[in-house]
Structures are given as structure tokens and as C-alpha cells.
């Protein structure tokens, strides 16, 4: 019975991280900051939730590990593709930005509504 409580606490912490990721996506000023908080926090929350579920029910651990590994592999890819596309079409940054290393790369598409 102890492992049920421990796993549920892990799931609760993971859900809290998911909530914080969604909160950051509302609060952040800029597309790139939003992408950063929406990717990292939700990945951690996802993996923590799957770990907690695996602790609660060890017979499902293989499939839960599969889902967690899938998220760990594909989430950086999709967010990287989104960030690259957004920078290429020239989505503006917040005025608080300190340094933009790719600034000299001209946006390829002028007026795409993305």
C-alpha cells in the first residue's frame, strides 16, 4: 500500500509541473519564451507522471516507459521545428531580448500569417 501513495505523490507532482507549463504559456511575453516553458516543464511533468504511474502499477511499467521515451524523443523535435519555422518567418521577439544570434539571417517569407 505504501507504493500506491508514493506513486500518487509522484503523479501529483507531475500534474503540478504540467499545470506550471500551461501557466507559463499564458504568462510569458514572447513566442520563444512560451515555447521554452511549454516544452521543458511539460516534458518533466510527463516523465514524472509516467514514473509515478509505473510505481503505482508495476505491471504497466514497460508501456509507460515506452510513452515516456517517446515523449522524450519527439518533443524536442517538434518544438525545434516550430521555433525554427517561427524564426524564419520573422515572429517578433520581446523587447527584453538581450541577444539574437541569428539576427543577420533574413526572414525568408515576408508576410506569412504564422
Amino acid at each position, binding site marked *: 500500500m505504501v507504493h*500506491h*501513495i508514493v*506513486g*500518487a*505523490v509522484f*503523479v*501529483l507532482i*507531475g*500534474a*503540478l509541473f*504540467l*499545470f506550471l*507549463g*500551461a*501557466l507559463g*504559456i*499564458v504568462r510569458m511575453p514572447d*513566442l520563444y519564451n*512560451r*515555447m521554452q516553458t*511549454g*516544452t521543458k516543464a*511539460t*516534458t518533466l*511533468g*510527463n516523465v514524472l*507522471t*509516467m514514473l509515478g*504511474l509505473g510505481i*503505482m*502499477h508495476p505491471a*504497466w511499467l514497460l*508501456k*509507460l516507459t*515506452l*510513452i515516456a521515451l*517517446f*515523449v522524450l524523443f*519527439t*518533443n524536442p*523535435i*517538434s*518544438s525545434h*521545428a*516550430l521555433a*525554427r*519555422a*517561427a524564426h*524564419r*518567418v520573422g*515572429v517578433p521577439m520581446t523587447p527584453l531580448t538581450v541577444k539574437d544570434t541569428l539576427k543577420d539571417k533574413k526572414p525568408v517569407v515576408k508576410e*506569412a*500569417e*504564422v
Partner: protein
Amino acid sequence: MANLLLELALAIGAAGTLLAVVRLVKGPRAASRAVALDVLTLITMPMMAAYGLYAGRQIYLDVALVYGILSFLGVTALARYADRGV
């Protein structure tokens, strides 16, 4: 006790879903909306898995996995459309 904690985690996840929908409605351009869609998927997948444990049926994990794969496909297609057009 553990079931109550799972229900609480599901409620927290649903509240996060509502926050992400706020960004989805407000989002100034379509890229912000795509980020909100990504976050919504990443919130919904562990919610599906947790509800699968709550209901005691393993096939719900398959639904979460299939949803993750197809939503990755959708977000990547959106990014590719924005980049150079499907």
C-alpha cells in the same frame, strides 16, 4: 487515498488545460496557437494514462500513445507548412 490523489492530479491537469486554452484563444499569431496545441497534447497524454490507471484498463495507455504519435505528426506538419509549405 491513492484514488483521491489521482483524481486531484486529473483536476490539476484539467485546470492546466483551461489555461492553455486561454493562450489558444488569445494567441496573437498561429504559431502561438500551435505551441498551445503542443502543450495541450502533452497535458492530455498523462491525463489519459492516469485515467487508465484510475479505471484499471490498460488499453487507455494505447490511446495515449497513439494520440502522442499523431499529434506529433500534426505539429510537425504545421511547422513544416510555416517553414516551406507542406
